[in-house]
């Protein structure tokens, strides 16, 4: 069996989940220029909403959808109640980040005090092993990869084929200009935050399914990978997030297979630093966007 090809398979499987999580994060950043540290807590929240449902014998895939929708709604509420208000009050980038950190930490520990720090699991049995050539994946992983692909395709169509998608892209590039073109930027932003919450929910529940065991630190740990993937691809760029997720997934798994497994994450992150030095705006990022001087 070829270990490299096997590792590529695993890389795609984990990359798919990272890409989903990263997409949600990068959409928020792209639209609102907010580095939302609380995103990690939203991931955790989604996983535990899913857990509540699964423990109540709800089908895990339905649980995923419900958890994603609830997270989406909470994400909009969070934007409406806090982020928008802070932006209107002219909060600086720094104080915004700290505010999101505050929300994140409060949310995370509310979750702990409800569910406790125990290791949890949805108790799914993996759905057998699927062999495709040298690639071995669990049935669950295959399902998640398919789901992720479908969602990314859907998002691609949304961004390119619909008025909403075009409005989202326009708002992301230049909010003022978009508004003067008659785009209802506020509504677009709300929808984006909803979408990013939904993506967070799906990614988190999918991660919990594949990982099998998790505790309340799932979100804050996964957030790091999510940010890394977003930055590799070019933060704020949806396609960058997809690509970044795949790259991070592949490098972690391949380095785990061929180099010391203990360095699994280090190699991926080392790549990231190299990337930052060579092309800090990410693969698909806008290289050195100039300041808008005098119109």
């Amino acid at each position: 069996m070829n270990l490299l090809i096997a590792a590529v398979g695993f890389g795609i499987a984990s990359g798919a989940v990272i890409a989903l999580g990263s997409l949600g994060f990068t959409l928020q950043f792209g639209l609102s220029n907010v580095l939302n540290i609380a995103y990690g807590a939203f991931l955790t929240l989604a996983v535990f909403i899913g857990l509540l449902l699964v423990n109540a014998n709800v089908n895990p895939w339905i649980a995923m959808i419900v958890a994603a929708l609830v997270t989406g709604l909470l994400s909009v509420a969070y934007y409406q109640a806090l982020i928008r208000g802070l932006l209107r009050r002219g909060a600086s980038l720094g104080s915004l980040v700290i505010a999101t950190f505050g929300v994140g930490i409060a949310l995370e520990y509310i979750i702990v005090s409800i569910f406790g720090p125990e290791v949890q699991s949805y108790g799914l049995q993996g759905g057998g092993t699927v062999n495709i050539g040298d690639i071995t994946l669990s049935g669950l992983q295959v399902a998640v990869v398919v789901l992720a692909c479908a969602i990314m395709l859907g998002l691609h169509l949304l961004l390119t084929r619909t008025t909403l998608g075009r409005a989202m892209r326009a708002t992301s590039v230049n909010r003022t200009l978009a508004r003067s073109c008659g785009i209802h930027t506020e509504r677009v932003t709300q929808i984006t935050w909803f979408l990013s919450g939904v993506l967070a929910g799906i990614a988190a529940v999918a991660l919990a399914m594949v990982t099998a065991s998790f505790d309340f630190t799932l979100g804050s740990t996964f957030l790091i990978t999510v940010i890394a993937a977003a930055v590799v691809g070019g933060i704020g760029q949806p396609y960058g997030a997809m690509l970044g997720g795949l790259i991070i997934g592949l490098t972690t798994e391949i380095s785990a297979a061929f180099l010391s497994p203990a360095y699994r994450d280090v190699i991926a992150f080392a790549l990231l630093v190299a990337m930052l030095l060579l092309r800090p705006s990410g693969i698909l990022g806008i290289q050195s966007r100039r300041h808008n001087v005098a119109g």
Partner: protein
Amino acid sequence: MGLGRIGSGRVLGGVAALVMLAVAGCGSSTTPSTSSQSSAKINFAVVAPMTGSMAMLGHFISDPCFAAVGAFNKAGGVLGHKAGCVLIDDTGDPADAVPNVTKGLSTSSNLVGVIGIDSNVAATVVPIINSAKLPMVSSNGLSFFLNHYYPYFWRMTPPDIAEGAATAIWAHKKGYTKIAIVLQNDVGDTGNLPGILSAMKNEGVKPVANLQIPGDSSSYDSIVNSVRQTNPQIILLSADTQTMATFLSNYKQLNNGNVPEVITTTQVMSPDFFNAITKDLGAQYLASKVNFIGAYLNQQTPQYVAYLDAMNAAKVQNASTVAATGPIGSLYDGMNVEALAMVAAGSTKGSVYDSYIPKVTTARPGAVVVHTFAQGVKELKAGHQIQYVGVVGPVAFDKYHNSNGWYAAFGVSASQQTSQLGSIGPTELSAALK
């Protein structure tokens, strides 16, 4: 990693610590100690991770304290004092632990003894508690304490290196030769590696795989894949609960549901782990394929019954499972030993009763063997010398205050009842570690 691990961070833990340092600056003079006439409440401190990713461990470590003080109070208290527990969060991280411990030591009233102190923080925290002249009973496994002397430090469980050897010996006893080693790359878990390798060398067996894995990863697919290529009969696996559960369920998913046997340590022997493995791999797997190696603890003794009663009386969740591990049992014993030493010394002052700890544990002619605090108090009042033999059996402290006892292998039933499967004695261990 992440929010969960910041614990009471430096900045955040900081300034309150300023105030307490003013008190701590006066050193041990503030260490509470009162004459035996006073009925002021005395406190035992539990130093353990209460928050962060290791918080579960802290919950278990605090249980024997609550159980023991319950037993003390039922028996009329220690020298007439009611006893209680104070929890000090070491967060599993030395840099966070220090401010918390210094603060805890100086702000808690009437502290008389300490239990807990996990491997991650022990080397840093033990000297601090030592200079506060508070006797401490620890279940950490650092080899550091095998040759570093702290007068107030006592350890009733053997170190990690012996635990590693015991794991390999147990695999050998089960007749396996294709052995894979998978350890989480932190100090506590990799500390087992030298012992494992030494024991395997002694048996003339080479591991088929020897890997260290990062903790709490979202997937171990590639690592699992390279381990399963070697077709191990058994995996010596030491990691935290979540890492192990994820690793094993990845193994199951990639290997058509077949997962080899696993030998791990009693560190994870908890309902938390049982539930995770049951959910991901099934109760059958847990019952038939997972063994736990840990400090010896005999469940078939009267003192164990008393211990379990005390745990139940303290309303410990899943008491029968939590109680069944050596480290937790040794901490309960440690509480009894500290309290009996106080009674024997007639003082709750650490600097006074510390030297009485060997005097209530050492086997010697004329000493009455006691198994509970109440018995001990009775015999001491009657003017007898005593030897406390607790749930982890008799202890004999060496000059570094380590007691190299027996190891035991445990199994768990599908209904999560733990039982002892066998034991490994000091002679086997020292042969393996030569």
